[in-house]
């Protein structure tokens, strides 16, 4: 049972009425003290953060500042933000899409950010628009996140009331994992389904209305006003040389409880977990990155793993969407993985055969192993399916499933052996890692 030390936590929020999200304090930049009232209104926001684009920073300089700061994407892909800005700017940007869909179901950081600091996100989007020459901003939020939707909509309306018209609008998207993919968002905004298009045309070249479009995660955008105001040097004062700055992390605590906190890039996983109230001695394994992620043993997490690409690469992992989901010793990692693979299968957009048929097949075989009723040749079949679906989808969904499963076979090797031998699993049956379920058919 993972326990929480009450002294480390402060404000509590209920997002959407079902998930408790607690913003833990720390020397953060994006979230400070977790005080909801501090900067929700525009007036309070300006008082705390000031104007996003000081007079000394012309639009042409924004890209350069971001490049010097070394900001990378916080949506999972970690692409260089400066390069993305430049790619759109040199083609003459049309619109900026602030990606607040947060399709990663175990993550809550983007929702929290949009609920606590809507104006920071808006400032960032407007700066990105200025840097790329875009004339409009679209904020995409998943339709099953009413708190974030309400917060951003109110913020946009408030700006209009103050006479600042950011040409921004909030658009709800279907609550699917793949809907948050860049090309899926573009397709949705162009009136099509929110499903990835595997075309070779990337949004920075041909996106919304076939014009150059910048698609950027809301947390990434929220960093822009801080960089332009305080400078790249300030931004680099935390984090590592290769990965400067801070990032938001969602720590899943089981039973639907989550902690969102801000940590410096390169912080040790054990430090982050401890701050979230999770004693590392009680951690059997940690899922790092999200359901699109990799398992790490509790020992590695405690010992050497750090929250950065270089800090996680030796373990075959990466920060991903910034999710840490620890499981205690009395939980069955194999069952958790099987549950997650079933989720993957239900998230297929259904556009590509290998994913549409392969993911359920893979999830089915693994489910049998997890239930202690493996079919003969189950592991060979799992190998066969993994090989056959990896890299053959129109997006990376099947790759995530294969990568997760691969890491599970290493980290939970003992569990696999036991289950394959037909021995009963003496672990607790309740699911440990809480995440948003698959949307209903038709959504």
């Amino acid at each position, binding site marked *: 049972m993972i326990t929480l030390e009450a002294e480390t936590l402060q404000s509590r929020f209920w997002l959407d009425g079902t998930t408790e999200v607690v913003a833990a304090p720390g020397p953060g930049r994006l979230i400070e003290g977790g005080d909801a009232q501090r900067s929700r209104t525009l007036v309070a926001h300006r008082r705390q953060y000031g104007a996003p684009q000081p007079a000394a920073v012309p639009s042409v300089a924004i890209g350069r500042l971001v490049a010097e700061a070394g900001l990378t994407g916080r949506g999972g892909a970690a692409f260089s933000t400066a390069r993305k800005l430049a790619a759109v700017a040199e083609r003459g940007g049309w619109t900026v899409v602030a990606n607040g869909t947060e399709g990663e179901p175990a993550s809550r950081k983007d929702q929290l950010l949009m609920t606590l600091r809507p104006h920071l996100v808006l400032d960032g989007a407007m700066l990105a628009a200025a840097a790329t020459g875009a004339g409009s901003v679209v904020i995409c939020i998943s339709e099953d996140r009413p708190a974030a939707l309400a917060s951003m909509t109110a913020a946009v309306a408030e700006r209009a009331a103050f006479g600042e018209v950011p040409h921004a609008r909030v658009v709800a998207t279907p609550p699917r994992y793949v809907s948050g993919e860049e090309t899926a968002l573009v397709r949705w905004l162009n009136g099509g389904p929110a499903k990835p298009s595997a075309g070779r045309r990337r949004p920075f070249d041909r996106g919304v209305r076939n014009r150059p479009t910048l698609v950027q995660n809301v947390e990434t955008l929220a960093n822009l006003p801080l960089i332009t105001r305080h400078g790249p040097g300030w931004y680099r004062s935390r984090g590592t040389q290769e990965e400067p700055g801070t990032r938001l992390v969602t720590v899943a605590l089981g039973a639907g409880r989550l902690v969102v906190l801000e940590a410096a890039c390169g912080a040790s996983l054990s430090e982050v977990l401890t701050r979230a109230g999770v004693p590392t001695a009680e951690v059997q394994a940690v899922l790092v990155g999200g359901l699109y992620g990799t398992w790490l043993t509790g020992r590695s997490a405690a010992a050497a793993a750090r929250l950065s690409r270089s800090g996680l690469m030796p373990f075959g992992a990466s920060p991903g969407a910034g999710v840490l989901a620890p499981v205690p010793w009395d939980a069955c990692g194999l069952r958790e993985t099987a549950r997650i693979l079933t989720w993957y299968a239900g998230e297929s957009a259904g556009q590509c055969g290998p994913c549409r048929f392969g993911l359920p097949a893979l999830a089915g075989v693994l489910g049998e192993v997890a239930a202690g009723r493996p*079919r003969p040749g189950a592991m060979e*079949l799992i190998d066969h399916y993994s090989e056959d679906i990896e890299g053959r989808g129109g997006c990376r969904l099947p790759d995530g499933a294969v990568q997760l499963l691969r890491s599970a076979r290493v980290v939970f090797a003992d569990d696999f052996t036991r289950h394959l031998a037909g021995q009963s699993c003496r672990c607790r049956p309740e699911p440990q890692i809480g995440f948003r379920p698959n949307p209903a058919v038709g959504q």
Partner: protein
Amino acid sequence: MLRNGPHTASVDSKLIWYSARASGIVSWSLLAASVVAGLAMTSRVLRSRARRAWILDLHRFLGMAALVFLGIHVVSILLDSYVHFGLVEVLVPFTGAWHPVAVAWGIAGFYLLCAVELTSVLRSRLPRRLWRSTHVLAFPLYVVTTVHGLTAGTDRHSPVFEIAFYGMSALIALLLVARLAMLRHDSLPDPVAQRPDRIEPAQRARAAA
């Protein structure tokens, strides 16, 4: 031995008239068969056992043959002395005196078939969207041609042909509905619990190995 005279003239003109009728019926039949082959090719029903490249080849052949026989049909009508069709009456609808509406359906079908065949021949050189949107016209093409057969055809009142027309139309409608249902099903992935286990053949092979 035929000598020029009223009797021979009527045999000749009858021959041309029969040719027009026959080639029309044959062209329609080839078109209908081509549509069925095209639908069969994309249907999931014929998955693992059918040799699909063969069906694709057949589909193409039937389409081209339909066009050829349509050409014979049009030329026969031009040559025929009974109904007085000139080039204008054959290419422009509502210009002839004989059953103008019924003929107009046929002329529309002629242009549609030309469009479908032309874009298919040039398929690799055309943008994918253009080919696909033109090819879908094959269905209105079939409808238009069938209406032409039912309203202009000399044999339209024969029960054999009525059965053929309605029967074939019903078959194509059924296949089309099945295909559309399949498309719709494709776009809504089912929850995992309801998805049937499709791995049986491979699994059995592995278990045996």
